[in-house]
């Protein structure tokens, strides 16, 4: 069992007890504990179940690389799944529970899968669930969805605060181990502005655990002194609990600071996302120990040798009384020596190397530890906890030589530099065969805007596993980075440390090297996703030769830990199976973030009301005060309708339309795009932009126009008014104002830059109100002495008026088919004009209407709407709008594209009206079926609904749609299947349902 030792625990404050619960059990730890060390101190080795086979899983590591020990952390709205206990600092009142089991952690029904493992090999899901076809939807998918996902989703509504922080520095150092400290110091002493960040709560990394002297001091004392020096420098910023999450183009760096995860009762933001622009980035990210692949290496109690050492030294926790050490390198001897000195038993050190270890091995022997060279583990005994190991010769096939009772196994397969941040932005890797790992290739670094290398790597992250070499490398890295930023590094020497005489590592990818299939099926590579040596070998046999394919087929490295422990072992097995050297197989792609970061940190403050700015018209306040039901239109909020009392939205819309058609309605049209196009070439320019001729428009007149992109498709429409000889005002759709203005500027700046034209987007400078209905003229007449007669201001004309004392430009245009004036005033007059119109129209029961009323009325008139009748694949000809396309013009944007054969094809679907036989409303987007089936077995189609509404004017459903040969098939009846079964029959009719001759608008 694992327990707290009487002595040790350099990070603990044993005077402060902290209480926490795991699966409802009340447990005790100390200040300074991680959740992992506190659980282990309470003999809670079993902490979860694996994803596929639901195997018992214990803690394996002591840091960010932990694949197994993931828990639900917190309760209620603060519950988060998949939190690593190894990187969670303990605090008083912490609550957590284990994941992926039912009914309980100890007795999990899903564990039956482990007995079915023979039948659940790599790619099982792909092979099994493909036939018979209909089974996918009704049987397989619901079942898989049940069992998919690790942990439960968090509850909506995050009660905590998050923020973004912008930072600029010459040199950002990622990693606060001794290499990071020395790099930061060297760069800072040269005068560079330095940021040093460390993901854990402590400076110094592994050095205090691993031992060694720096400049004649203990590592711990050197770290304390160096931090003190850095703190005193005004050009240095230090941050603990801040992870370098990702390195991006041109020196962009994301830092993820967990500000108060460890102290949730304080009033700080929970996480802070650092958005850093660094001239140079130093990755002093250290190295991660690799597991060894032997049968039963996933049984709780089998851990990384370095982790067992960490728990003993940092937290005073012993994993077991009897620990067998198995290794292919000298470093693991440190664990044996440390434990032995603490009074714990080391029954044996199994060194897979025939020639054994160096000075550390001699020290272990001198302490009386049994060391066996050329030996390995054939099999670990135990279920939910290690009970012993069977020893074999590494060179053989697993014949058991001896069984040793133990309750912990410390394994070490060598160390892999953390190259993630180096690789994020394109840094390449080298295979170092002596140390059997990939390390950064200094000739191929990530490059910045000027082509310069902007990432420098330092210490063990650079493959310098020895303390002395790491410090020398880190000193040089700091100086290189400072120099690259124009500083002059001092000619100081790197701190000295005595090198340990270590024997060379020997690559061991499988233990024993000739392990049979039964052993290989129990030799885990990826603990979280249950990928074994046999799975990777199967993938290779089945032709998944690319490492990226093998990864996806086996799910190796696809778990939440992203293969920090498993990747190198897995691709070594793959390389062996393919009979090729490891560098030829290569690695999968390293992508940010290094470990998962919270979505809330990414969102920062941008949520709820400040998620995005809301655009409001000058009349918005009135809408709010009058019960408007809003809908988003771009960044605007527009009233959909104005319900009265208990009225439904549908009833409100019908009332608004009836009142407008019969008497008087009012629409806030301020959101409409308004772009002024001015200059001697303005007419010529608009002739290129619109499909019809705008240059012939007379001042004082308005003309409707269509705008297409160069690819021929409709992109916008609206009314253009000619203000004077040189000036046009172009109305665009609400959502199109900015993009159409951008489109104009694009062509003016990049194609016709010699044309004399200026554009200005004045959308927000004007409020615009549509006064609509038979009583519109009468109402306006009450507010002005200007002539409003049809002769003075005819349909499609405009005039400047003084209305209720305000300067108003009145456009006589209509999107409803009614007598209509759109009144534009400077925005500051908008609300006053609206109020004046409400007063003047009161005697006619003036009724403000919303966007839904606008939509229904335009559909009753057969007017198209960009985004309904068009979807980026529709040309004006499809909408029978040939009348709006000039035949006289040599050119306009989209003209050439519309001449292409498929654009001129008579078989394109064309706009018609649709009238249901039973008067009901067609579902939006419904398809009209045709006879026969296509190659995918789907019904053939011959048209689709583009707009569909209930028309209160006609008392029935009306719709528009695009139909094959539609305009030539008036009176034909089409079938529109409904989603829930059944068919609606609809007749093809003219799309103008109401007032075909336009008598109402033209009075």
């Amino acid at each position, binding site marked *: 069992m694992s327990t707290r030792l009487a002595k040790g625990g350099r990070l603990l404050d044993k005077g402060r007890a902290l209480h926490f619960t795991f699966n409802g059990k009340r447990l005790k730890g100390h200040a300074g504990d991680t959740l992992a060390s506190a659980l282990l101190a309470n003999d809670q080795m079993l902490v979860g179940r694996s994803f596929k086979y639901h195997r018992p899983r214990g803690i394996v590591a002591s840091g960010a690389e932990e694949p197994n020990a993931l828990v639900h952390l917190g309760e209620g709205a603060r519950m988060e799944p998949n939190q690593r206990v190894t990187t969670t600092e303990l605090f008083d009142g912490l609550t957590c529970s284990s994941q992926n089991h039912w009914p309980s952690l100890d007795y999990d029904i899903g564990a039956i899968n482990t007995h079915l493992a023979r039948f659940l090999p790599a790619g099982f899901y792909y092979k099994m669930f493909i036939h018979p076809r209909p089974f996918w939807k009704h049987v397989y998918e619901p079942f898989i969805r049940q069992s998919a996902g690790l942990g439960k989703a968090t509850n909506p509504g995050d009660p905590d605060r998050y923020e973004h922080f912008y930072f600029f520095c010459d040199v950002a150092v990622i990693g606060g181990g001794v290499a990071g400290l020395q790099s930061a110091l060297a760069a800072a002493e040269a005068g560079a502005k330095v940021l040093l960040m460390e993901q854990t709560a402590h400076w110094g990394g592994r050095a205090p655990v691993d031992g060694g002297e720096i400049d004649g001091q203990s590592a711990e004392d050197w770290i304390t002194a160096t931090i003190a020096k850095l703190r005193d420098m005004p050009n240095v910023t230090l941050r603990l609990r801040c992870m370098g999450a990702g390195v*991006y183009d*041109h020196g962009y760096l994301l830092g993820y600071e967990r500000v108060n995860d460890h102290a949730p009762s304080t009033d700080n933001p929970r996480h802070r996302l650092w958005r850093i622009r660094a001239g140079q980035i130093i990755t002093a990210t250290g190295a991660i120990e690799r597991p060894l692949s032997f049968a039963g290496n996933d049984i709780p109690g089998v851990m990384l040798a370095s982790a067992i050492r960490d728990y003993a030294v940092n937290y005073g926790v012993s994993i077991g009384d009897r620990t067998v050490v198995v290794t292919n390198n000298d470093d693991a001897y440190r664990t044996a020596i440390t434990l032995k000195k603490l009074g714990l038993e080391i029954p044996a050190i199994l060194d897979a190397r025939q020639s054994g270890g160096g000075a550390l091995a001699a020290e272990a022997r001198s302490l009386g530890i049994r060391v066996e060279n050329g030996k390995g583990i054939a099999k670990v005994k135990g279920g939910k906890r290690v009970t012993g190991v069977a020893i074999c010769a590494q060179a053989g096939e697993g014949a058991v030589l001896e069984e040793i009772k133990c309750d912990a196994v410390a394994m070490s397969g060598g160390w892999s530099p953390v190259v993630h941040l180096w690789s994020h932005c394109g840094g390449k890797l080298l295979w170092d065969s002596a140390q059997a790992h990939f390390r950064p290739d200094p000739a191929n670094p990530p490059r910045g805007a000027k082509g310069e290398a902007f990432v420098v790597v330092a210490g063990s992250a650079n493959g310098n596993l020895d303390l002395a070499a790491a410090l020398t490398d880190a000193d040089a890295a700091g100086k290189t980075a400072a120099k690259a930023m124009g500083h002059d590094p001092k000619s100081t020497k790197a701190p000295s440390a005595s090198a340990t005489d270590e024997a060379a590592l020997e690559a061991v990818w499988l233990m024993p090297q000739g392990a049979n299939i039964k052993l290989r099926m129990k030799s885990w590579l990826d603990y979280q996703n249950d990928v074994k040596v046999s799975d990777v070998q199967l993938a290779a046999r089945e032709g998944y030769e690319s490492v990226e394919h093998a990864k996806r087929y086996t799910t190796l490295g696809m778990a939440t830990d992203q293969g920090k422990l498993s990747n190198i072992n897995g691709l070594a097995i793959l390389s062996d199976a393919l009979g090729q050297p490891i560098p030829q197989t290569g690695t999968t792609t390293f992508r940010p973030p290094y470990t998962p970061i919270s979505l809330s940190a990414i969102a920062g403050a941008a949520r709820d009301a400040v998620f995005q700015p809301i655009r409001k018209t000058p009349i918005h306040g009135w809408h709010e005060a009058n019960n408007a039901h809003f809908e988003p239109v771009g960044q605007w909020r527009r009233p959909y309708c104005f319900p009265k009392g208990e009225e439904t939205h549908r009833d409100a819309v019908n009332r608004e339309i009836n009142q407008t058609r019969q008497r008087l309605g009012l629409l806030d049209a301020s959101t409409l795009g308004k772009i002024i196009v001015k200059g001697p070439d303005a007419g010529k320019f608009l002739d290129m932009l619109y499909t019809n001729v705008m240059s012939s428009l007379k001042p004082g007149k308005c003309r409707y126009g269509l705008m297409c992109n160069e690819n021929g498709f409709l992109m916008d429409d609206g009314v253009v008014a000619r203000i004077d000889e040189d000036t046009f005002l172009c109305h665009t759709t609400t959502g199109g104002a900015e993009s159409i203005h951008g489109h104009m500027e*694009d062509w003016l*700046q990049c194609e016709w830059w010699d044309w004399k034209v200026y554009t200005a987007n004045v959308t927000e400078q004007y409020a615009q109100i549509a006064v609509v209905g038979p009583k519109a003229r009468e109402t306006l007449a009450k507010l002005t002495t200007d002539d409003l007669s049809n002769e003075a201001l005819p349909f499609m004309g405009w005039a400047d008026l003084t209305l209720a004392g305000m300067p108003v430009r009145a456009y006589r245009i209509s999107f409803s088919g009614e007598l209509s004036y759109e009144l534009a005033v400077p925005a500051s007059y908008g609300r006053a004009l609206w109020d004046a119109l409400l007063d003047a129209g009161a005697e006619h029961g003036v009724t403000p209407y919303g966007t839904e009323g606008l939509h229904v009325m335009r559909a009753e008139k057969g007017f198209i709407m960009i985004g309904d009748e068009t979807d980026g694949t529709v040309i004006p000809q499809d909408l029978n709008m040939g009348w709006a396309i000039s035949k006289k013009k040599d050119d306009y944007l989209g003209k*050439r594209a519309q001449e292409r054969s498929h654009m001129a094809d008579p078989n394109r679907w064309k706009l018609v009206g649709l009238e249901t036989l039973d008067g009901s409303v067609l579902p939006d987007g419904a398809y009209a079926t045709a006879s026969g089936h296509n190659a995918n077995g789907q019904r053939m189609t011959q048209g689709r609904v583009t707009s569909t509404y209930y028309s209160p004017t006609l008392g029935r459903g009306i719709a528009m749609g695009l139909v094959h040969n539609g305009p030539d098939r008036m009176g034909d009846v089409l079938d529109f299947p409904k989603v829930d079964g059944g068919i609606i029959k609809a007749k093809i009719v003219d799309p103008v349902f109401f007032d075909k001759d336009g008598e109402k608008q033209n009075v």
Partner: protein
Amino acid sequence: MLILTCPCCGVTGEETEFHQGGEAHLKRFGPGSTDDDFHTYMFAKENPKGAHFERWRHNNGCGKWFIMARDTVTLEVYGSYPAQTHEPPQHIRDAITAKRPGWTWREFA
């Protein structure tokens, strides 16, 4: 996230301040052009491994379009220049040649 410099207002800013507008130095083919010419103009875009010429707009700044020469492999920026330019200026070409001798991009080299 790239760092760009607008040749019009001189501001050096983050990519989010700008908007990419596709390939630069396009010659427009309108009515009267052949199907092949129009197709090439509209759809056949360069996708080089190396130097590339792109249109960018300083849309959260001065609003001007400009052209940037950029390396699609190393992300190095060779320089930016106004959109009202028919072909890459000599100093930009020289900068590319220094890093990628013998480069070509459409009719330019």
